[in-house]
C-alpha cells in the first residue's frame, strides 16, 4: 500500500446482533487519539453495510468487534464480501476470540486479531501494520 501521507481511515462496526459495544467505542477513541480517521458504523451492521461504507469512505482498514463467539462464521464472511466487491482492505477482529481459533481466522484472510486486554499501543500498532503504514499515523 502506498503511503499517501493522509491519516489512516478505519471503518469500525459490530457485525450481526451482538450488542457489546464498549470495546469498539474505546478503540474508536484510541485510534482517533492516534491521529486516525474513524468511521464508526456502530451496532447491527450487515456485511453489505460494511462493504458499502468501506467503498464510500475509501477506508484503509476495517475493524470488526465480536463478543458472541460468532467470529468463525462472521469473520470469514466479511473478508469474503470485501473480496467479492473487489476491495483489498484488511480486516482486523477485536473481542473474545480464543487462541485456538486464530489459525482458522488467519487462513480465512483475517489480517489480525486483538484480544481482551490489548493495550492502546497494541491496538494502534496492529491497525497501522494492517494498513501497511508502520511508523506513520
Amino acid at each position: 500500500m502506498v503511503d499517501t501521507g493522509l491519516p489512516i481511515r478505519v471503518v469500525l462496526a459490530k457485525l450481526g446482533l451482538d450488542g457489546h459495544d464498549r470495546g469498539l467505542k474505546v478503540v474508536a477513541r484510541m485510534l482517533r487519539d492516534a491521529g486516525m480517521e474513524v468511521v464508526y458504523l456502530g451496532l447491527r451492521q450487515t456485511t453489505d453495510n460494511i462493504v458499502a461504507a468501506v467503498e464510500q469512505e475509501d477506508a484503509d482498514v476495517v475493524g470488526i468487534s465480536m463478543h458472541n463467539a460468532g467470529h468463525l462464521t462472521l469473520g470469514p464472511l466479511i473478508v469474503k464480501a470485501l473480496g467479492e466487491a473487489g476491495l483489498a482492505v484488511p480486516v482486523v477482529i477485536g473481542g473474545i476470540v480464543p487462541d485456538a481459533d486464530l489459525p482458522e481466522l488467519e487462513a480465512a484472510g483475517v489480517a489480525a486479531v486483538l484480544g481482551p486486554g490489548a493495550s492502546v499501543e497494541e491496538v494502534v500498532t496492529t491497525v497501522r501494520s494492517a494498513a501497511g503504514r508502520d511508523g506513520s499515523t
Partner: protein
Amino acid sequence: MDDPRSTLSGIPLSPVYGEGPLPGEYPYTRGVHSDMYRSRLWTMRMFAGFGTATDTNGRFRELLRSGSTGLSTAFDMPTLMGRDSDHPWSLGEVGRAGVAVDTVEDMADLFADIDLGGVSTSMTINGPAAIVLAMYVVVAEQGGVERGQLAGTLQNDILKEYQAQKEYIFPPRPSVRLVTDVIRFTAAEMPRWNPVSVSGYHIREAGSTAVQELAFTLANGFAYVEAAVAAGLDVDAFAPRLSFFFNSHVDFFEEIGKFRAARRIWARWLRDRYGAVDERSLKLRFHTQTAGVSLTAQQPETNIARVAIQALAGVLGGTQSLHTDSHDEALALPSEAAARTALRTQQVIAHETGVTGVADPLGGSAYVEWMTDEVERRAEEVFAHLDEIGGGSILEGVHEGIQSGWFMGEIAESAYRFEREVNAGERIVVGVNAYTEGNGSPGAELLRVGQETEDDQLARLATVRSRRDSAAVTASLRRVVADATDPEANLMPSLIAAVRARTTVGEIVEALEGVFGTYVETAVV
C-alpha cells in the same frame, strides 16, 4: 464452620451489633431482614445457557445437583433480539452465547424434568421479555403448575438496554408499555413473580462508574414506578415485587457502600416521593453478579480470586442472590468445571468464613458509613439532573436522557477514562499491565458451541413450523396486533395464546414491530 452463631474459637455472636436503625428497619441501609443470612442464606443462582434447550437443561440439572438453589437462564443473541434462529441476522449466533428459544417447545425442553412449582427461575431477557414469560406460563401449565404458583424473575428492564446493553427492539415508549403490561399482569395473576429486575449490571459492564450504575439503575426503577402508576396501578400493588440487579466490581468498599446506599435511597424515594406505605415496597431486594468485565484473559486462574472478593462484597452488602462468574469467562462461555468452582466459591463464603453470623457486619465502620453517604450524595445529583430535564418526572427525564444520548455519552466517557488509566499504568490490573510472568500458558478446556448446534436448532424449528396449525398462528398474530394497537389492552393474554399456538418469538416480534416500529440508535462515540 457451619454454625453462624459462634466463631471458629467458640466466641458467641449476637445477630447484630450497633445502635439503630438496625437491619430490617427503615431506611434499610443495614439490610432488608433483621437477622439477614442467619435465617436464610442468599440464593445461589448461577446464570447458564448455551446451545439448544436440551444442552442447557443438562447444565441446569447439574447445577441443581451441585447445590444451586435457583435457576437463571441466558438466552442466545437471536432470542434476546426477538429473531428466530432461521432469520438471516441470526447466522453464526444461534446457541453461541446463550440458549436458543424459538417456540414454546424449546421452552418445554429447557425446563424438562425440573419442578417449576418448586424452583425459582430467573430469565434474563428484555425486548421479548413478555413473550418469554408467556412461554414459561404455558410450559408450567402444561406440566400442571398454575401460574400463581410460579416463582421467579423476568429481567424485563428495557430502559437500560438503550443506555447500555443495546438489546432493544421497539422504541422506548411502546417498550415501556410492554413492561407495564407485564407488571399489571403479574400483580393480578402471579403473586410470587418479580416482573422487572431493574439492572445496573449491564450499565457497569458497559463502562460506567459505581455511582453511575447506582444512579441510572435507581432512576430507571423510579421511571417504572411512574409508568405503572400512570397505567392505573397503586404503588403498593406492584412495588413489593420490583427487584434489582447490581454488579459487584473489584473496588471492595465502594461496592459495599453502593449496595447500602441503594437500599436507603429506594426506601426514601418510594415513601416520600411515590407515597408507598407498604413496608415491602420500601425494601430494595437485589441480585448480584460479579464483574465479568474485571476478568482477565491473561492468567485466567487469577480471576478466581477476583470473583471471591467481589462475591464477598455482595454478601457484606446484603445481597439476596448471587451469581459468581467463572474464571474462564474472558475467553468463552463458562465450562462446567469452571462454573462449579465459581459456585464452590459462594459455598466457601456461606459455610466457612463465618460472615453470615452477623447482619451488616460492617455497619458503623466510619469508612463504610462515609462511603455509603458519599455514594448516595453523588447519586442524588444525578436524580436532580434527570428530574430537571424531565420537567419534574424521572420517567420523562430518563426518556430525554436516552433520546439525547446523555446516558451513553456518560458511560462511554467513563469506560475510556478507565482504559487510559490502565494504559498509563495509573491502575494496576494483575496479569495485564503488571505481573505478566506466566501469561500465555496454555489454559483449561473451553466450552465450544459449534455450527452443528445452529443446524440442529434450525431443524427443530422447521419441524415445529411444519407440524403446527398455521391458521391458528395467523389468527393469534392478528389478535396480538389488535391488542398492541389498543393502548388500554394488556398484551399478556394474547401473547400467551400466541405462544400456545406455536407462534415463534420472531413472528410475534415482527407483528409488534408493525405497530410499535423498530428502534435504531444514533451512535454516540
